[in-house]
């Protein structure tokens, strides 16, 4: 197992190199650069722009820029944001907790509704409940996230019970500690539902299928024949076996923790990483974009690895060592 993990981790290196090179080139060849906004202002002198260009290294050919970026990054220095003038890591760290909170709540939300619904749909297979849940699951899967987010914003502005966006209320600083906590919760509810509902629908269908698979297996039949009560069969034997494959999806969920909410954050004005990265991308704040991409792809690769390890852990039939 150890050699397997080591091999996978070593494979990360060429993969990250490839991804970073690709993104760097894409940022470079897309029209314009960070200084465009300055160039369009009439009271900024040309010498200042030229000076900035040298300072940021934008006057050099792209491969030179890439090499110097790579050299820095390998030493663990993700550089400095050009527009904020603070280290990229500090900037990302400032926004990461909000995104992490949202990703985790939506993950919990998705699991909390998907598992029971999937189980019931399987237990009462072909009932009206099963059909309804299938219908709503397909609907949830087919509605794009940003559209759901828009619906949520409209809902909030019409209904008035929820904030139309953001992370905390305008008078947040002047609330009691309990009030502050509730304020955060209040603001998290809608984005959590929007972000979680698609995942919940998918998980629920998987859960249902797994349950059905297990229900039809020989040992369940044997248990029934031996007269084990239905509840015990369902919850002690079937559920435990059916949930195994879902555990591996936790690994994948890890990869989306920081980068899975870009659309929702932007539509719902949620001040997380996704919003920051989108903005940095539009502004061509290169080092922020690059750091976000590197972190995002590392988490994807590690997430995959975790999924594979979890799979081996929950299912003794799978072995990675020869």
């Amino acid at each position, binding site marked *: 197992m150890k050699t397997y993990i080591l091999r996978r981790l070593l494979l990360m290196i060429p993969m990250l190199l490839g991804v970073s090179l690709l993104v760097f080139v894409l940022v470079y060849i897309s*029209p*314009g650069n960070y200084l465009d906004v300055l160039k369009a202002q009439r009271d900024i002198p040309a010498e200042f722009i030229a000076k900035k260009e040298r300072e940021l290294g934008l006057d050099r050919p792209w491969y030179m820029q890439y090499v110097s970026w790579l050299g820095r990054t390998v030493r663990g220095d993700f550089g400095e944001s050009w527009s904020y003038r*603070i280290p990229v890591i500090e900037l990302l760290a*400032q926004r990461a907790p909000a995104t992490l909170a949202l990703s985790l709540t939506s993950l919990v939300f998705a699991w909390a509704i998907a598992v029971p619904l999937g189980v019931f749909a399987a237990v009462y297979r072909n009932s009206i409940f099963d059909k309804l849940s299938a219908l*709503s699951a*397909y609907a949830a899967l087919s509605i794009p996230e940003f559209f759901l987010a828009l619906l949520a914003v409209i809902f909030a502005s019409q209904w008035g019970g*929820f904030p*139309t966006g*953001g*992370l905390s209320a305008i008078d947040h600083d002047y609330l009691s500690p309990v009030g502050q906590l509730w304020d955060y919760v209040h603001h998290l509810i809608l984005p959590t539902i929007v972000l979680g509902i698609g995942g919940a629908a998918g998980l629920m269908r998987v859960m249902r299928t797994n349950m059905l698979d297990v229900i039809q297996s020989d040992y369940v039949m044997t248990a029934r024949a031996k007269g084990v009560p239905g509840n015990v069969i369902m919850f002690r034997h079937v559920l435990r076996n059916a949930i195994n494959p879902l555990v591996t999806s936790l690994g994948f969920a890890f990869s989306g923790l920081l980068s899975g909410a870009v659309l929702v954050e932007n539509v719902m004005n949620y001040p997380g990483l996704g919003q920051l990265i989108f903005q940095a991308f539009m502004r061509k704040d290169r080092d922020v974009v690059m750091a976000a991409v590197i972190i995002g792809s590392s988490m994807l690769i590690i997430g995959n690895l975790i999924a594979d390890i979890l799979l081996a852990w929950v299912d003794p039939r799978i072995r990675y060592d020869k």
Partner: protein
Amino acid sequence: MLSLRPTVLNSLFRGVAITLAALLIPACAPRQKLKREFPPLPKDVDITTKPPGRYGGIYISVDPGGGPNTFNYLVAEDATSMGAISTVLEGLVRRNAMTEEIIPGLAKSWEIGPDNKTYTFHLREGVKWSDGAPFSADDVVFTYACIYDERFPNRHASDYSIDGKPFKVEKIDDLTVRFITPDIYAPFLEMVGGGSILPKHALQKFVDNGTLMKAWNIGTHPREIVSTGMFRIASFKPGERLVYEPNPHYWRADSAGQRLPYLDLSITKFVRDQNASLAAFATGQSDSENVSPADVEWVRRGEKAHNYTVHERGPSTVCNFLWFNQNPEKDKSGKPFVEPYKLKWFQDVRFRQAVSYGINREGIIKGVLFGRGTPLWGPETPANTKWFNPDLQKYPYSPEQARELLKQAGFRWNEAGELFDSAGNRVSFSLNTNQENPIRQHMATVFKENMKDLGIEVKLQLLDFGTFVKKIGESYDYECGMLGLTGGGDPVGGMSVYLSSGRMHEWYPNQKKPATAWEARIDELMMKQLKTLNLAERKKYWFEVQRIMSEQLPFIYLITPNSYEGVKDRWENVEIPKAGGITWNLDEYYLK
């Protein structure tokens, strides 16, 4: 399947909403009382002319720019950051936005030496930074030492120099500073006097260790960002909001001896989108908002329900224009930037005037701005009352006159009404503009139709902002461009546009020497207006530049949208100037 979706969602939402309604009651827990300190007023306190008001109130605004990127005066490049910085860091003088007069700021008075190059400022006695440290001439000298420091490249350094020579800034005594400019510099008071003054006691350590550019960033604790303005920063949450609280040492008060501002708090909420910002105002969640002409109608419908009024401010300072590329040079491969036969049309003033006559500006205003706009004939919009020249050559919509001019210039039409030049080339060009601005896109479409009536074929090319900037500023491979610039202010802001050597002299930038006699004349006038402190004379020169621009039409001016500002009715002392932000006197606002 889709039709079922809302019901499912609704019932889900309803369930959640009801559960939460019960849970949310603790959120309305009692607020912490806002405490305010009142240290004694400074000796040279500035007393407002307005009758005394009373304390209290929270002013809420929404900023669609997403909030400041930095609080560092030398780093800030965008309007939102600059706005936040100028709120906390005052200048030596201020501007009365209503009268456009320069009024005392941190300096109570100043005099200009007989050589017109020496400015002596007398600072207010007893003024303190928000942390209680005294404000003095050392801070002023320190500020300019930072700006001119080679280690900290910033945009102000070249603004505050003439031909690369910096101003001399000397401390005479603790409350007197003297500036000496290397040459006469007309906008000195407005440009330099209004510039922020940095706190020496707070920033000296960053200068010493060379990290000034990293100081006062968005991670800095708000208490470290000291203030001379009406507010200091109470808290800042990136991407969320900026909360200002009154600066306990602010140097303005009312005649009853109450220190300004009256407000308890001023909160700016950040959103990422103009629509979100407008929606917040229209539903009563913010105190003021800039309303675009297309939105005025529906926003006004909420006036009664949410107690606000949408005020008309008249023409805005946004100048929309189009121009033809008159650059006769060639690119590196020897290919001319503009087809030589087309360049001939573009350089012919009769062609440009004909195009101007052919544009139905009233039609654009009616069709695109719902009648809420004003036609433009020159570089200044009427909003800039001080510098606007109303007496310019005008080109009211007249296809007949356009045809007449085209005929004189040797153009002719075929049976189908298509226009050809004397050499038999079909008159056709492509118009480039950036795609981010919907109003400009609509204007381009109307322009295309107007030109079609003259037999001219216009191809629209919408580019993204970066590509467009590159085309007009670096590669020059385009024929016609359309742009909107926010103008206003002193003509010195237009040096890079009107000087033939300028970077933004769009029709033919960076000329070695002026290509035409009228460009040479503009160069001369622009230099002259810069080298005199006599306002009447400066006006005369700048008015002539406007006149030449309207006759020669290197820029064909289109329209300016009118500007509207929605403000809640609950505030006293709201004064809405023709141009610029409406909260310039926020320190005098109080609840009715």
